[in-house]
């Protein structure tokens, strides 16, 4: 099995977006192409990841990248070989959100975009860096409550959903911005798409 990662390279752009998707429909609730069309970021450097095991990327993305540590190494090696990239952003959807938050910290990303964050939904143990953990053991309040973090974390969620319960706990943490939407259910991206707001989320194109 090969790694579930797609690299779209744009050498005229200094931004890299790393997308941590979730589930069969990627947690996007629209096709990746439609997501790129609506959000207006197809002209940026993009890494698009899929985690078939739905393990919050703790078991990597298949193939040779079979744990989170190797995934971070892959990102760092890619960045070292891509000197035109100066701005790194991570985005995660649903149970892909945890991976985007942790990767954002490791890569010192400028900003992390979490949509409909789902805290550890997988019960079993997995390996995070060199430790055996369960995704349930990740406490984002503890992880993000550090003054030394430069990364800004945006949590987008529908108010009338379970997602709100996890997100409101993050209120007031340094560098955390909550983006609630007055809507029902888990499909935050669908909310944004229906309201024609997907193209307002990500930063404008920055050339090299």
């Amino acid at each position, binding site marked *: 099995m090969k790694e579930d990662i*797609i690299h*779209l390279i744009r050498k005229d752009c200094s931004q890299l977006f790393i997308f941590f998707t979730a589930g069969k429909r990627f947690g996007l609730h629209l096709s*990746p192409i439609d997501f790129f069309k609506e959000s207006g970021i197809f002209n940026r450097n993009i890494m*698009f990841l899929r985690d078939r095991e739905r393990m919050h990327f703790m078991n990597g993305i298949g193939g040779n990248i079979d744990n989170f540590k190797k995934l971070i190494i892959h990102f760092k090696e890619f960045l070292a070989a891509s000197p035109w990239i100066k701005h790194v952003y991570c985005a995660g959807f649903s149970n892909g959100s945890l991976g985007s938050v942790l990767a954002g910290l490791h890569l010192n990303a400028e900003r992390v975009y979490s949509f409909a964050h789902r805290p550890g939904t997988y019960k079993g143990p997995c390996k995070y860096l060199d430790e055996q953990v369960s995704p349930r053991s990740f406490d984002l309040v503890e992880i993000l409550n550090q003054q030394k973090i430069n990364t800004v974390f945006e949590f987008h969620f529908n108010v009338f959903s379970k997602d709100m319960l996890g997100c409101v706990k993050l209120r007031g943490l340094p560098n955390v911005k909550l983006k609630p939407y007055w809507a029902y259910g888990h499909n935050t991206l669908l909310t944004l798409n229906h309201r024609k707001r997907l193209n307002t989320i990500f930063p404008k194109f920055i050339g090299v």
Partner: protein
Amino acid sequence: MTSTIKKQLIDQVKSVLENTSESEVKSHTTLVTSGLIDSFAMLELVAFMESEFLVKIEVEDIEAKNFDSIDAMENLIQRLK
């Protein structure tokens, strides 16, 4: 005679598709409308075509009619070259 572009595309489609026998992929095999490739696989093909054939595929070009067969993809590459 199969063109080089066509041969590379066939090889890539075979690589993208899992659990599909080689004989199933012909230049005219419908890929998108038949459900043989999903949107992730389609994005993989976009990345492959851009890097291998040095073409810039605009997001507007990424629609079923341009990816529904090896022939259609070859036409797209020829048009963008």
